[in-house]
């Protein structure tokens, strides 16, 4: 059998360019962007601006990207995250302002509500086999509708009862804004779960070949359900962060956020076909998205134009990620 083993050894020595790109492509994009931005604008590489980028990321795509990564790893998609974030934002203000539950209880209730949204989406996807795209699209409408109903379409100020939450939104810890610390914490836990636990291993395997995992005697639906619950809960957390920073619960939060979140995950090199993706690259992807927005603001690009450039830059990032790999055949 030397004929079989020998070429394997040869293969190993050969440098695999597309694997390298998959692994370090996002880092390359990130570094290139930092260099380009600091050459472009002297105000980019200053502490206040960088903290601003981080805070932006933490309260937009950042935390949701971890949940989305989990969902995408199982070969699914969760389009409801933006709406669930708005529900989290509205509900947190509603509970704090009107229920008298106190901040801690309210926060727990809101996270549970987000998880419940994920439970509905994931339940239908996992146990009835409905396509995640359509199911989460439905949840996107439902959650947005609920937050409009609860808020009656108007912003809900959290008032004095929410001081503790506002303090979190504007507070610093170890020189970093607290929401940013929270985001890093979520990424760290996400990374640990993904790389060191049975759960993380199985959701990757399910995304690669669900049937083979099922035929290994694994209760696949349970794991699929769990990723949507996690995604919903994290979206609610993102909504709470928004409330903590602005002091109001608004149903307008997170409109279109799902697209930025998906873009962050995909720029982070995750495959929409499931099974491939990592937490660190997803964080880099989210930071890239945040930096692009920041650079355009610094450069004074008008808001409407920004969207066009954002789209173009995503295309370029994707070409760098996948282009070289798939063009060679």
């Amino acid at each position, binding site marked *: *059998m030397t*004929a*079989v*083993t020998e*070429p*394997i*050894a*040869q*293969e*190993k020595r050969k440098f695999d360019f597309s694997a390298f790109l998959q692994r370090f492509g996002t880092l390359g994009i990130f570094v290139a962007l930092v260099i380009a931005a600091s050459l472009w604008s002297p105000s980019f590489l200053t502490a206040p601006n960088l903290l601003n980028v981080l805070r932006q990321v933490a309260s937009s795509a950042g935390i949701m990207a971890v949940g989305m990564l989990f969902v995408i790893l199982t070969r699914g998609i969760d389009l409801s995250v933006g709406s669930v974030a708005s529900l989290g934002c509205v509900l947190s203000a509603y509970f704090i302002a009107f229920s008298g539950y106190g901040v801690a209880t309210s926060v727990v209730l809101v996270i549970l509500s987000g998880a419940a949204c994920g439970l509905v989406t994931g339940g239908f996807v996992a146990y009835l086999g409905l396509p995640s795209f359509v199911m989460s699209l439905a949840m996107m409408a439902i959650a947005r509708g609920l937050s409009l109903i609860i808020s009656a379409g108007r912003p809900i100020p959290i008032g004095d009862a929410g001081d503790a939450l506002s303090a979190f939104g504007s507070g610093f810890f170890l020189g970093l804004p607290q929401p940013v610390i929270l985001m890093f914490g979520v990424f760290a836990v996400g990374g640990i779960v993904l790389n*060191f*636990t*049975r*759960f993380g*291993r*199985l959701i*990757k*395997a399910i995304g*690669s*070949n669900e*049937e*083979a*995992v*099922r*035929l*290994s*005697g*694994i*209760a696949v639906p349970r794991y699929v359900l769990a990723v949507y619950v996690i995604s919903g809960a994290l979206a609610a957390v993102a909504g709470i962060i928004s409330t903590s920073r602005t002091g109001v619960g608004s149903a307008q939060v997170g409109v279109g956020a799902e697209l930025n979140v998906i873009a962050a995950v995909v720029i982070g090199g995750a495959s929409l076909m499931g*099974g*491939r993706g990592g937490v660190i690259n997803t964080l880099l992807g989210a930071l890239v998205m945040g930096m692009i927005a920041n650079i355009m603001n610094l450069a004074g690009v008008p808001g409407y134009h920004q969207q066009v450039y954002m789209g173009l830059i995503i295309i370029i990032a994707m070409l760098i990620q996948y282009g070289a790999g798939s063009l060679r*055949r």
Partner: protein
Amino acid sequence: MSELARLTAITKSFGGVRALRGVDLDLRAGEVHALIGENGAGKSTLMRVLGGEMVPSSGEIRIDGERVDFRNPRAARAHGIAIIHQELALAPDLSVAENIFLGELSPVISWGDLRARARALIDRLGFDIDPGRSVGSLAVAHQQVVEIAKALSRKLKIIVFDEPTAVLSTQDAERLHAIIAKLRDEGVGVIYISHRLEEVLSLADRVTVMKDGEVVGTKAAADLTIDEAIRMMVGRPLAALFPEKGPRAIGETRLEARALCAGRLVRNVGFSVRAGEIVGLGGLVGAGRSEVARAIFGADRLESGTIALNGQTVKLRSPKDAVAAGICLLPEDRKLHGVVLDAPIRVNATMARLSAVVNAFGFLKNALERRLVADLGASLKLKAASMEAPVSSLSGGNQQKVVLAKWFHAGGDVIILDEPTRGVDVGAKSEIYGIVFRLAEAGKGVLIISSEHQELFGLCDRVLVMGEGELRGELLPPDYSEENLLSLAISRRSAKPKAA
């Protein structure tokens, strides 16, 4: 006869595996050139190269003496090359006519004209199929006719059939042969891949035998016998592959299936497998053997019937229940159902019993897992760069060993092996046979499904024969022969299935 195509020194590598190692093949106009060889010999890969679906690592293709360099299937089609795959490449929701002319639909479709042209092509093949019907509603044989008509709708010089009769009834196969004879008489060069040697020898003008990515030889079909063809394919007599059958202690009943019914292909099936026993499940493709395996394993729903394990009736609603109860299944389709190709060997090997390598909080014990998998790999003679290599980088035989490692790790009492040596080279085959014996010697009940009857005879203590979803009978070693097995398999109204 003029030479249509000549392939010279074609090589193709996938990851670490060299699927083709310098293959030469020529095809003349107006001949049927059969390509035979074991699974994994490289026949289909070679045809994918000819069809432009794969770019060879090296080598030369000439069509009509002119050097060509196909980068995609379209380039090959432009030279009049069509490939009819086993898996038909049709759009099931479109009509027959649309499928036939899919590549050349005009922006505005004239339905009347399209249907008339489709009907003319189908008539030419001697069939009567309504061009307006959706392809998905047709029988497989008729879908194949559509695929051939599609090839005929363009300039056609070379047509390749990749195991076309595997899914056809005898009658449909004969009609297909008539079509092929017609194409040959029109001067088309036909390449015909099949495992059915009688069919190959009666249909082909020349036969090329491949083995392990190389051509063993090309001969006129008239000069070739079935025995000689087998010897060329296998390289040695089949019997030498099987380990000595030592005496094995046969114990209590491990698995008992009683009157199982599940869909059309599992009708009132009952049998038992005892500890240390190797029982074969033979029959033709589509007889319901895999369906029986899947029903026992809880992968498909059981309509009625009961399953007992070690004397206790168990309710198995899912593979999870089956694995927990101690039943393992090595599935027929290794790549789709057996392994997670992108994942490392290590991840695949422990998947069926992860509880052994995680702590109370669900964290993986990596060091322990590495050690376990390294031991498993060594005991199964798994050949890989490392246990961290993705399964996709392994040869078929080693991939199969990963599936076996998974079930060794899970450690059930009953193991069902569905086509364990499909797409596996001869050396690994022999090693897998050794592993099967080891499983039996360890006191497990082993049920083997195989379409290679000699394999069943070489391994099994007895062979159950299925036909059309029913158990048709049982063969014991003194009665082992292809004829006996086939006559049971195709006997329409057989005696009642024997309860084992």
